């Protein structure tokens, strides 16, 4: 029983870490008024960059850094389109979702001689506790990836900056009423560029943790829908850092439930089990969450001088 609970906790945390990073990225972007539906694409490119750099340099941390940068670059495209070109942000985000995974597999085939799978990285991101110490104890299954801690730090930091500092206030104001921010002499464009790029970096990091901490290589299915789940978590969490974090944890927990029930004595089809997280999410939404409203100016391009 105890070991089951420990497994549940560690799976919950492991599964939710990349989602959390990406979802916080989504929150930041939406807070400043730019809908970022392209999380999936940014995560994919991050996953590829992380695994590739991790493989060629042998350094997982360098890989993670590049994962962040690559996500940020893709986000820059989204920023240019949705801020300067006043593009429909859904359309541009969807384009990112097409370009990201396509480019990731394309590059994987380019770097790894036509294989859509990368070679495994020599060293993964470290776990917080040395594995040897735990080996023969009951806690052998309970070892948390460093990415879990990273995710938690990002959540706390984002919450603090968003709600306790003047920069956060500016970001939130930009998402609610950009014209007001503009009249006070703060550049709406700058804030939005900054937030969207940060959002891409976080999504890239999320993708990187998948290939550098959970599985140790890039595969075409490494990022298969997590970006959309992260997007769902943003809405689920009502566009708040802790809300999104809670949504990701719930999601991770239901994944853990799938694993544990699957290993149990009850004979249920694995496909039915796999539905649990999604059904559970809908039920929680109906029972507890209800009506949600995005930041007011979210999705609307800002034009200087418009009312």
């Amino acid at each position, binding site marked *: 029983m105890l070991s089951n609970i420990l497994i549940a906790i560690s799976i919950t945390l492991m599964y939710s870490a990349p989602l959390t990073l990406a979802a916080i990225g989504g929150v930041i972007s939406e807070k400043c008024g730019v809908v970022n539906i392209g999380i999936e694409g940014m995560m994919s490119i991050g996953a590829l960059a992380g695994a590739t750099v991790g493989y060629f340099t042998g350094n997982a941390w360098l890989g993670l850094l590049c994962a962040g940068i690559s996500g940020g670059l893709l986000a820059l495209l989204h920023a240019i*389109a949705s801020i300067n*070109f006043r593009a429909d942000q859904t359309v541009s985000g969807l384009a990112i979702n*097409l370009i990201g995974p396509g480019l990731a*597999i*394309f590059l994987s085939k380019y770097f790894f001689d036509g294989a859509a799978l990368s070679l495994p990285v020599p060293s993964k991101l470290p776990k917080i506790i040395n594995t040897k110490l735990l080996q023969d104890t009951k806690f052998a299954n309970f070892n948390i990836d460093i990415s879990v801690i990273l995710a938690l730090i990002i959540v706390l930091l984002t919450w603090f900056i968003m709600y306790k500092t003047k920069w956060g206030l500016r970001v939130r104001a930009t998402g609610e009423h950009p014209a007001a921010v503009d009249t006070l002499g703060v550049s709406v464009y700058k804030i939005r560029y900054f937030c969207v790029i940060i959002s891409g970096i976080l999504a890239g990091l999320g993708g990187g943790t998948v290939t550098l901490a959970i599985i140790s290589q890039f595969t075409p*299915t490494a990022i298969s829908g997590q970006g*959309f789940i992260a997007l769902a978590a943003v809405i689920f969490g009502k566009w708040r850092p802790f809300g999104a974090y809670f949504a990701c944890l719930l999601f991770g927990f239901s994944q853990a439930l799938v694993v544990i029930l699957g290993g149990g004595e009850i004979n249920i089809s694995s496909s039915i089990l*796999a539905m649990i997280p999604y059904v559970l999410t809908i039920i929680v939404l109906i029972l507890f*969450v209800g009506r949600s409203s995005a930041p007011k100016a979210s999705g609307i391009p800002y034009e200087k001088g418009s009312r």
Partner: protein
Amino acid sequence: MKHRIIKFLKTPFACTFMAVFFGFMVACGILLVTGYSASYSMAIIFNSIFARPKFIINVILKSVPVILTGLSVAFAFKSGLFNIGAEGQYIISTVVSVITGIIFDFHPVIQIPLVIISGMLAGALLGSIVGYLKSKFGIHEVLTSIMLNWIALYTCNYVSMCERFHKPDSDGTYMINPSGYTLVLNNWKFSESGREFLKHNFILNDIILKTDFNLNFIFCVIICVLVWFLIYKTKKGYELRVSGLNPDAARNAGINVERNIIFTMVISGLLSGLAGAFTVTGTSSHNIQTLSMFENYGFNGLSVALISGSSPIGCIFAGLLFSGLLYAGQSLQYKIGAPSEIINILIGVIVFFVAIIRIVPILLNKYLEREENLNVK
């Protein structure tokens, strides 16, 4: 003259055309950088779509599901809803069509409508859940749609593997009963006399024998026109568009926005469902298989809707372009070894340019204004 050109450049057609053009430019650039010949690749793409009657027909046949899912997304867009759930609606429709097609075996006149309608209703059911939850509890449609996509995917896997339908030693179910096929002249073309006749007629042989020749595309075009009529020529369509553009104004005018949300999602689900049902009845392998990942028919529908600018008629052309490119991508990989994902990038870049090309009319208007001001002075 200058004004005429500017006026033309501002039309949606010109904008889309420019986006497609830029998309190809970027794709060529990527191919060049990674060491493939761009001109040769483009020649292959062109060839693998137009070189043989069989290719053209295949592109048309494969465009049916993306046109319909595109239409489904475009229809929802018109009333302000983002139907990211077309994927799930498509999948669940294939599942239900296959179940109906296997269980029942009536005369084709009954069987075909039965299979297709059951699939459509399944799609509509999924759509109506999204609509109901949105109008009743205010739950964002994107959220429920994403969850339902996965539920549909796992339902598909469950049915593919359950004892009643699973075909031993395969990943999928049995095929539906042949009475549910919508293939044209299917029995005749494999019969002695049919083969004999086709042998002497190369083009017909290529078109009918070598493809899953069916008439779904024609129905698909008719449905696009019907949806266009619904949106632009009926009272309901007007209400939907108003609800999409300004829900508050719609409410003030006495339009029941909540009910329209459900209505929209039902129709949208029906259309995606039709895409799934047509795939089951019209193209081999007439069954469903376990999916490890989404097959992207619904997600491709999103791209089609966006490239077409949410125009029902535009969806036909965008869908043809899309299916042509996907079809050509396979031969690109096969012939010069360039990863077929270049096509996904190409489509992504086209969609990206569709997004940013909106600036062109704005800039042109500014240019015209400035010129007018100069003239006044």
